[in-house]
């Protein structure tokens, strides 16, 4: 144990030294990196209640296969080690420790879920191992002062909630808002964002806020209540299955509110189509990634590239799910960071480069949306744009908006 700790300390010192005198010619490695490989760890729920997200891990794996087949990153191959935590925090802790202490990865990338990431945050920061681009939009993962080794990626839920609030205040200032939300941190973050955005008007405008549990068979009862309470603005904070149920039930009982659907569930192929395209007409949402099932991007060059990748490296993958293009894009972000890190593959430098993304454009991001981060800004993507569904495809409208949570 002592030997490893001294090594680590030595490596950290070396990293500090390099920061002050940037001579990049020299090669520097922390555990998990060498002349030939970079070990990247990952934790995903391949089983259990959230197993739908397992697709993200599988797509990332496929993408790194592509990177390796095309020569790797600065000549080094990525070894992607991904474990299942079944969406259970104790298992997340076990798997994170396995990755860090047994597999000795350079960093853990895209570990999924708020609870799991909260469970390992202290450990990762104590060990000074990057917990990079976590797969959750909870606001607590962009706090470089307290947790310099943890960084988010996607626009955080609270910012998105604020964007909807802005829209409501602008277009429906007298609206009566009904909210359906998942009873967990994700649902509550959206709720907080919306309420903060509405400010003093929140109390008078919100007529009902109803939670549901993942174990609930349906949300029919909640939809019926929201309609009876006279809500004419519907803020729908649900995961894909419940989003589809809510959209269909609302159409079935003839409730036609201004429907604001959270970004989590705005995939045409895996939510709107199952719910019914007619019933989904006029739904509003926000986006930052191109939706592969939206015909708008049929001839888009980046989309074609993505399709070619899917056909070659992940032919069994579900192309209608938005998770595949999300994963593709986040994997590209990591590749960008590792490229920037060059030959200095220390944990310190990985974090430094992750916090040094400047106007990075990735093909699958919506036009005008770029990755930006800094030493005090651990939210790489903060921009989103509102969009309206016309029964066939999403139409972007309004300006590219940026969230107001987080630094710089």
């Amino acid at each position, binding site marked *: *144990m002592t030997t490893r700790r001294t090594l680590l300390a030595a490596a950290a010192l070396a990293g500090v030294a390099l920061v002050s005198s940037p001579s990049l010619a020299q090669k520097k490695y922390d555990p998990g990196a060498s002349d030939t490989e970079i070990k990247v760890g990952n934790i995903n729920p*391949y*089983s*259990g*209640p959230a197993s739908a997200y397992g697709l993200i891990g599988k797509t990332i794996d496929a993408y790194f296969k592509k990177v390796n087949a095309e020569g790797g990153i600065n000549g080094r191959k990525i070894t992607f080690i*991904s*474990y*299942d935590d*079944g*969406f*259970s*925090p*104790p298992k997340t*802790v*076990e798997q994170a*420790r*396995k990755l860090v*202490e*047994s597999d000795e990865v350079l960093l853990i990338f895209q570990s999924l*879920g708020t*609870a799991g990431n*909260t*469970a390992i*945050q*202290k*450990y990762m920061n104590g060990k000074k191992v990057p917990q990079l681009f976590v797969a959750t939009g909870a606001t607590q993962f962009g706090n470089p002062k307290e947790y310099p080794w943890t960084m988010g990626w996607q626009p955080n839920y609270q910012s998105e909630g604020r964007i909807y609030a802005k829209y409501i205040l602008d277009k429906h200032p007298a609206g009566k808002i009904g909210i359906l939300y998942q*009873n*967990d*941190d994700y649902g*509550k973050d959206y709720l907080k964002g919306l309420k903060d955005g509405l400010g003093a008007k929140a109390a008078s405008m919100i007529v009902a806020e109803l939670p549901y*549990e993942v*174990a609930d068979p349906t949300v029919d009862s909640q939809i019926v209540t929201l309609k009876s309470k006279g809500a004419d603005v519907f803020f729908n904070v649900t995961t894909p299955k419940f989003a589809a149920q809510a959209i269909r039930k609302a159409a079935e009982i003839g409730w036609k509110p201004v429907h604001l659907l959270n970004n989590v569930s705005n995939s045409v192929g895996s939510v709107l189509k199952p719910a019914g395209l007619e019933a989904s007409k006029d739904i509003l949402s926000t986006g930052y990634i191109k939706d592969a099932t939206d015909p708008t991007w049929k001839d888009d060059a980046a989309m074609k590239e993505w399709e070619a990748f899917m056909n070659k490296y992940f032919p069994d993958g579900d192309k209608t799910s938005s998770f595949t293009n999300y994963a593709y894009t986040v994997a590209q972000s990591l590749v960008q960071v590792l490229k920037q890190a060059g030959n200095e593959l220390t944990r310190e430098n990985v974090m430094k480069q992750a916090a040094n993304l400047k106007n990075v454009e990735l093909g699958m991001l919506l036009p005008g949306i770029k990755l930006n981060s800094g030493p005090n800004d651990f939210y790489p993507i903060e921009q989103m744009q509102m969009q309206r569904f016309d029964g066939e495809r999403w139409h972007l409208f309004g300006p590219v908006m940026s969230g107001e949570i987080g630094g710089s």
Partner: protein
Amino acid sequence: MAAREDIAEVAAPRVGGLTFPAWQRLLTVGVLIVGLAIPLFVRNFTVFQLTLVMIYAIAILGLNLLTGINGQFSLGHSAFYAIGAYTTAILMDRFGVPYALTLPVAGVICLIAGFLFGLPALRLEGLYLALATFALAVATPQLLKLSLFERWTGGVQGIVIVKPDPPFGLPLSQDQWLYYFTLAVLVVMFAAAARLISSRTGRALKAIRDNPLAAKAMGIDTALYKSLAFGVSALYTGVAGALGAIVIQFVAPDSFTFFLAVSFLVGMVVGGVGSIPGALIGGAFIMFVPNLAEQVSKGLAWAVYGVILILVIYVMPTGAAGFVRLVAGRVARVVSSNR
């Protein structure tokens, strides 16, 4: 171990000049020595995993006291595990209580909770009790999220707690210290369970399991004993939960799903219903076999797990403890007939 004595007394076979109970004592001491030595030779990560095995073993033992000894089913022990974990987390985080002192508190609270749950459960037998406890397990995460208690429980966010350092400047890592701490608790709890089973109370509990009507006719207060069994069982599982919170450093509603309760049940059956040492085997099973299954196939990990489980039941229908007893019995017979 009481269950083994029955056989030993009847057959009284000697293997290598020693009787069954003597072999058992020897084995116990051997296991204990190995248990004390292991953390000094393996990596911290392995130490951490073994600590979790012991924690699960305590929880499974708790379930075993209810099912194996008293014959009541429970699919809801994740609830008591959660109560224990939250008690410790809240005491440590909100009130600054030292971790060691939270264990007895967690135990007592679970004893009361288990006893109270046992009262209505009295009227429910077999299947109905299984359903009521199943419902309890499914409802647990929702109860933990309840906004009324959010001030203490942290709601959906859960509570992060600090890992304790070894006391008195002992030259151990945090993981090694927690391992020994857990081992000490485990030894106490296992010994207590063994005494309980062979005591008057234990015999009453077993009488209720084997023939409730006869037990009643003999003047055993079945209602009291059954509720008590529920309470003690919950106490064990709650202490395990408390240890789990300290080792994992985090509690959240998602940690205590129905799936955890099912794991305890699987661990109990695989280890051997009614067997005290079997609980350790059960704990190791639910800790390591899912990882093993994941190595075989990522996409079908749980299918592999299911197949392993079925095979285990086929090969050892009475669990590991029953299997060992069977093999030991055969060995003894072969040895004595060769003489």
